[in-house]
């Protein structure tokens, strides 16, 4: 079991440029055993921040991508049959609690509502994880940290995070980095030169301006990096942007055409 957790330990420092004081807040939260809530649009660096934090704290990072079929059992664990015997297998949350790791529940609002039964006692000062099927109550060690994330931009009212849940966390709001910082990130991650990275960042900003004009979400930093990587593979800049950004963002013919015009203006 220990060996499984070792796989989650991040050895090399993940590249992360701070936008503000998010790292200081997260470290303070860890010190005081308060869970973290990360808010922000897709591809703005939430996961990378968690990797960096885990590396900094030298704790394993157990990431769970939540989906609408994710139940308490998926988080806590379940009995399996092995050689005619019922064997208990820890779920990712139990694994993290048991070994003092960082558990990152990505897009928590997508998970089934019954998961709050285990999240609530773990997120307040009790820091306990009840494992009902085993009749066990785990108390989280000081090294354990719970972090959840969600994107307020595209959640429906039905999937909003309840106050009783969110008020157990310290919240960090992530946005797309300022142009200078984002250029540096795109340049570092994709390997393109500064001028191309700057143009990609301008394109990202232009698409984000369309958020209220029919585009559900603008191009994330991640998409800009993808486009940069394609360009590094000797692909024509306009073709790379079309594949990595334009077609990814929308299927609407008029918006596709408009984003293509943005690309051809910049590259």
């Amino acid at each position: 079991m220990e060996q499984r957790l070792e796989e989650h330990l991040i050895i090399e420092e993940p590249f992360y440029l701070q936008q503000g004081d998010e790292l200081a807040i997260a470290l303070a939260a860890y010190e005081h055993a308060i869970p973290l809530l990360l808010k922000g649009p897709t591809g703005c660096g939430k996961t990378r921040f968690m990797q960096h934090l885990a590396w900094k704290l030298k704790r394993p990072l157990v990431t769970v991508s939540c989906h609408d079929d994710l139940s308490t059992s998926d988080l806590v664990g379940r009995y399996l049959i092995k050689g005619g015997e019922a064997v208990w297998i820890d779920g990712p949350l139990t694994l993290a609690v048991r070994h003092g790791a960082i558990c990152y529940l990505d897009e928590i609002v997508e998970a089934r509502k019954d998961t709050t039964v285990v999240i609530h006692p773990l997120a307040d000062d009790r820091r306990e994880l009840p494992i009902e099927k085993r009749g066990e109550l785990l108390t989280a060690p000081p090294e354990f940290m719970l972090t959840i994330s969600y994107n307020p931009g595209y959640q429906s009212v039905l999937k909003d995070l309840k106050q009783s849940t969110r008020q157990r966390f310290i919240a960090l709001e992530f946005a797309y980095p300022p142009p200078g910082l984002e250029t540096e990130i795109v340049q570092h991650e994709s390997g393109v030169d500064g001028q191309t990275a700057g143009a990609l960042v301008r394109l990202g900003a232009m698409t984000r301006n369309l958020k209220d004009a029919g585009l559900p979400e603008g191009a994330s930093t991640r998409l800009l990096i993808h486009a940069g990587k394609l360009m590094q593979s000797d692909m024509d800049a306009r073709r790379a942007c079309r594949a990595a950004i334009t077609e990814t963002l929308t299927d609407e013919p008029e918006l596709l055409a408009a984003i293509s015009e943005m690309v051809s203006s910049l590259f």
Partner: protein
Amino acid sequence: MNSIELEKRFFELVPSHPPNAWEIEEYMEQLGPLPDPQQKIILDQVPVIWPVSHALCYSYLSCAGSALACLHPNQLSQWVAATLDIYERDGLHEAQMFMANVESNFLCRIRGEAGILLSDVAPRLTPYAHSIAERKIAFATGHHMYTDTETIFLPHEITLFQEEEDNFLLYKLMVTFQLGLLRCNTYDFSLPLDQLRHNGIEKTYGKKLHLETILLEDFFSLFPEPRLGEDLFTLVEGMRVNAYLAANFPGIWRDTARLRTALAKFRPSLNRLTGKARIIEVLYRYAMTGKPISDGGFKRSIFDLALAALADSWSTPEESATRAMAIYALLEEIGGLYDPVESLPYLGRLHPAEAMNVRLKRREETKENFIKALAAILLPENQPAGQEDSSDKAGIPAPKISGDEGVALMISQQKDKEDVRNKTEPNGPIQFLTVGGLDIEIPEPLRMLGDQILDDLGHIPNEYIAAAQGMAGRAAPTTQAASTPTGESLVAPLTYDEWDFRRAGFRKDWCILRQRRILPVKGTFVANTLEKYRGLLMQLKKQFEMLRCQERFVKGQRDGDDIDLDAVIESISDTRAGRAASERLFVKLLRDERNIAVLFLVDMSSSTEGWVSQALKEALILMGEALEVLGDRYARRNTPGWARPSDMLRA
């Protein structure tokens, strides 16, 4: 068909609002000599045009015969659709003009020989403009090209180049250039008087200047020849925007290099220009192509000096003004009056007065919205309904939070926004609001309004905050037009295009959506229907209940929440008996959720009057009752009739 048969056929095609027989007699006689297939093709389009405009339909009937001499029969519907588009955009006269010349107005265009229309490029360029300007920018047809900072006025059509793609590219360049003027803060021009005095304009031209700063609309009138001053400033500022576009939008600048060179061919011949106009034209061409003209019979020394004035880069409109003044002084040597030269097609002219009007209007709207939004935050919470402020009773509105208790907007000193000007004001985004010493998180809409004010004025005026405090003291701000119990419109009508299957195109602004408050009425119809169909309703509910989803355990799964003991025992037995054991040993809890919404669209037009309407209403009541069992969301929308002005959707 003879004219009588044609008339009969016409009346069959227009059952609603048929005309008098004498009104169509003349047109049917015109169609009479045509072969039967052509008559049929022409009449087939009547149901498409008649509901839109009777007058247009008559014009169509008189033109259609001759149009078919040029058109392939299959193209007639396309021609009609184009005619209707023009009618809805520009009116009857323009549509009649369009129909009058099929070859040049229609066939050339579909062959790609007649350029491209603004209406064709607008859907593509509107989001593009929005993405650059960071706000909505509208397009409109104008006699010449310019922007008032909210709308870009463009030619109705561009036919300069043979290739449609090139004409589109010119539209795109025009739009990008006008947006470049906005990004480069051309209309934020504010020239300090000291700088003017330094340039000696007061001394040179004898203008008496009384203002501290000169705005763009006043700047041109400082020159003895204001139009020359305007053209020079536009040219110099245009070159600054050129440099901005080349640096920030290299793609379009590169794509249009060929076009900009080609546009020089459409410029007036240098030989026909004299004096100052010739130098201006040479400078225009230089601005377009970036290459100086080697020969043109103009005063080389003045041109070289003018180029020297434009040699290095500059970053503000005020610097453009200084350079324009310098070139103006050079041109004074030539003498004679300036005969204005046509501006560059993508540069257009500046309209500072219109831009200022729009800016003031926008400033007023932003101020109003900001005060309302801020007042909504300052409004004391938990005030019992109906409890009025004592100061209201006295007729003197007093703020709940006085100035002494402190309301302040904290503003960051830096702003990460692309800005080609070096602003010194602390115009960063609003960070938080302090009320009585407490920090309050600012909602996004208020933050955006605050940022707009900061962009415009550089600070949030105290009067805005005081007004919001005053409003918060009086009552909750109204966020929309006041609602009334008498059924008036709650908000402004919303218009949108509607698809017309007959013409396979959209009818412009055809639908008008007005929200009206429906007053409750008492009646026994619902109760009577429920009573009358009690048996059927029970049956319906029972059938619907069977559709209801519940959480259920499913046994024998490969994975699941718990172990399926029966399956495990069976598996162990099988293993011991030497048989292959099943792997399906788990129980899974299935929580199927219904995510269904039902919309009933009910035809309540006059054709359903009588028993059909009665049956519809009864069916709706029964369906509504049955759906309540399932908990599915449902809604009803009624369309009362065909006649457009009276059509109404009822929820």
